[in-house]
């Protein structure tokens, strides 16, 4: 696998795209991050990150349905690609390996 660096925020957004599946569009991701991570993010930041992920090939997008609340504008729905999924897995594995190397706290040391 090609070693492409994934920033912390990129990783977060990519994970959210994976979680939300058919409902993964800009606003939904903002709300999801707010709800689950208790973290305020700006819509524009999420959009830019989504486009960047698309450039890198970790997500793909298609136009979804329009609703009245959106003034008749359609949503752009993002779906995670296999490459994106692999990337998330790889990050997770590497992290676990490193975690195992971390000396565990023992009460005796304290």
């Amino acid at each position, binding site marked *: 696998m090609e070693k492409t660096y994934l920033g912390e925020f990129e990783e977060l957004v990519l994970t959210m795209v994976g979680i939300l599946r058919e409902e993964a569009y800009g606003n939904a991701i*903002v709300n999801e991050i707010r709800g689950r991570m208790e973290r305020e993010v700006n*819509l524009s930041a999420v959009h*830019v990150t989504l486009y960047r992920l698309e450039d890198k090939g970790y997500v793909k997008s298609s136009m979804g349905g329009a609703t009245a609340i*959106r003034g008749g*504008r*359609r*949503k752009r729905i993002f779906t995670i690609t296999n490459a994106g999924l692999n990337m998330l897995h790889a990050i997770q594995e590497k992290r676990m390996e490193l975690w195992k190397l971390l000396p565990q706290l023992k009460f005796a040391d304290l």
Partner: protein
Amino acid sequence: MKTSVQPPKWAIDFLEWFCPDRLFECVLGDLLEQFENELELYGERKARRRFVWNVVRFFRPGIILRNKFKLKIINTIMLLSYFKIAIRNIRKRKLYSFINAFGLSIGIAFCILIYLFIQDEQSFDQFHVNKARIFRVEEKSYDRWSEDKEYPYRHSAYLQTGLMQVLKDDLPEVEMGTRYNSGGRGVFRYGEKVFTEKLTYVDADFFKMFSFPLLQGDAEKVFKDKYEAVITPAIAEKYFGDEDPIGKAVEIDVNGVATYTVTGVIQEAPANSSFSFEVLISQENRMFYERNINQWGNYSTPTFVQLTEGADMKQFSANLDKVIEKYIAEDLEEWRENSNLPDDVKLLELQYSNLSDIHLNTKVSWQKTSDPQYSLILGGIAILILIIACINYISLALTTSTARRTEVGIRKAAGAKKGQLIYQFGFESIVLALISMIIGLGLVVVFLPSFNEFTNKGITLGGASISGLLAVSFAVTLLIGLLAGSYPAFFLSSFRPVQVLKGGFTSKLNAVFTKPLVVLQFALSAFLIISSVIMYRQMQYITAKDLGYNKDQVLAIPTQTGYSKEGNKMVERFRNYAAQEPSVISVTGTNSSFNQGWSRSGYEINGEQKLAYVYVADPYYVPTLELTLVEGRNFDPNLASDSSALIVNEALVRDMGWENPLQEHLNWREDSTGLGPKIIGVVKDYHFLSLENEIEPLLMTMNTKDAGFQTTMLVKIDHGNIPESIDKVRSLWNELAPDKPFDYTFIDEDVAKQYASYKRWMNIMGLSTAFAILISCFGLFGLAGINAMNRTKEIGIRKVLGAELMSIFVLLNKQYVWLALIAFTLAAPLSWYVMDQWLADFKFSIAMGWELFVVSMVAGLLVALATVSYHAIKTALANPAETLKYE
């Protein structure tokens, strides 16, 4: 839609403008969705506000750059076409484009140089890692000699030698501290190699506090011993070549020769450092160190401290006050009582400045400070030149506008909107400005060495500064392009196609616009001309002024002995040696030469405190400098009593109000009579200080009793073959003192150095003036050419009707003479004001007579006439048969 509340329409338009089409729909959708949610959460007003803010947040590179330049307003193909037309136009009107590009590129080059200057000023001492925690401790002391009675205080960075240890011991905030004395030269010897080197005295913490990396040696261990030396790589190379300098024993002569071990090599200080050094040795080796360390009131040592992380500055100030209270309060009270000083004023206070601020702080005397005003003046000059160049652009564009009317007409007829035409012309000027920027950058590279010389700086291109530099030049370029291009763009695009294409338009000059511009341009140039003429005259005055002594062919040679009896012996022996040498006319010894530092002494007369400069002289001092004795006699080597006698200058006599000075004594120091030394002679006032000062009271003493104050030898040589005479003096010196290096300066050069910064300013003004005149002249040349061209037919008819050549010449030039005269009238008061301020620095200055203004005006007029005459002559001489052929 559920609600009728809508987000601001303009915000959506703005989004549509910059957001790529592909993304616009989903972005707007999301924003609207968010807006609906927030409408319920926050209410209408806040939701609208947040909507706008969110739109603005989308205005970021990650979105805009996805546009692939598909801006709605100008599409890529049109832009290409504009570019092509711009290039074509630039090539078609070569002279006109050259004038514009030339002026703009010089303007840009000036701006960049000034940016570099200001950046360099700001970057002083910024490279120290701990700069935020490093402070210079300063004293603010009551100054009863002060001329400013409102604020009789003196700020000084020179502190008591022992203070640093007190600060380190008594103040918990002080983590480290070092004293720093740059000054004095000492003889440095390693084997056969002997030179004098600049010595700098510091303490061990110096190497830990400041970020001058130790290339060799250990910052923690250096200066544990008194006799250690740290040197720069250049010194290491000079004495040791390729050998390892660490551990080498060298001899340094500071108050007597001692052996030092080299224990470190420190990287040279960059040009933008307040500190500089070549050979660093411990403070403990400074002259009179032992004596000074416990002596409060002897202020000679700049002191820097590094505070602990997060130190409370208020507490630090309070603790500094406590130091004064604890150590010196009693002395101060005594001083107050003895000298009848006011009861309520604080006589002495310790203050501090952050390291980053000391370079631009001119209030506290320090080497290498710089007045922030200089940056302002330079910036002002750069802006003047830019304005002149922009005016060229505007007036030339306006006057050539007739030629482009047809183009505008056709474009409009073909459906171009006014906005598009504005973009086209604006774009054109930006293209020209960009070309100028490239030339300007080239000019910067070419001129940087001379600029450094002018400003006494060591600015280099490259490194971290280059990106900032490019950003600034780019910004300046765009600004110029917009400034210079906007007016012509609006003007040209306003032509009505019907009128233009019908062919009935006149080709008259837009005199209403161009004339004020030319006047403004000329006034700016005139301001620079007058100012440089006045500066030049003042510098000439200073260099030519009779100083009251003869400074020619006098060498100042340091005896390299420090204050010791050896100095007097050296001078004595040299004089005897040189007696047989015809090229040496006279030899005298003194405590300091001109511009090499002075000492002043106080004396009291009728309860009043006075100060006088003290020169240690000998019987040969007066003849060597060709001073004039107005009363009394010179020192006599055969009269023992003369060793305690004084020669004073007229200023001192005036100051004392003496009717008959030769009957007087000056209780300047103790002597057997109890009255003080007797006055035996009065010398005519001479300018021993620079001309920025009045002639101050001065006294000369032989001072052979204590001996040891002759540290400089002044040698007057024959004016015949000077290099040969210097060689003679050198060989005499080498015979006499083979172990001491022969350093000499000419005192006239030393004296000239006092005015070095004024001279630099004169050079900078002169250069800017030359460029400003050149640019204005080019503009005028272009204007005159177009004007003459527009009037060829008129001239042709006049000639046919029998007009004289001269009258046509006058006709064509008359208006420029008027414009130039108006410009001078406007510029004169401004230059008078500014130059009056400048001349105020000098106690001896020229009077700004009207003749200086007339000279400047005539010079300016001549230049302007010469510029426009080419076209006038050409047009006047043209054959009317040719010019009227097609009528």
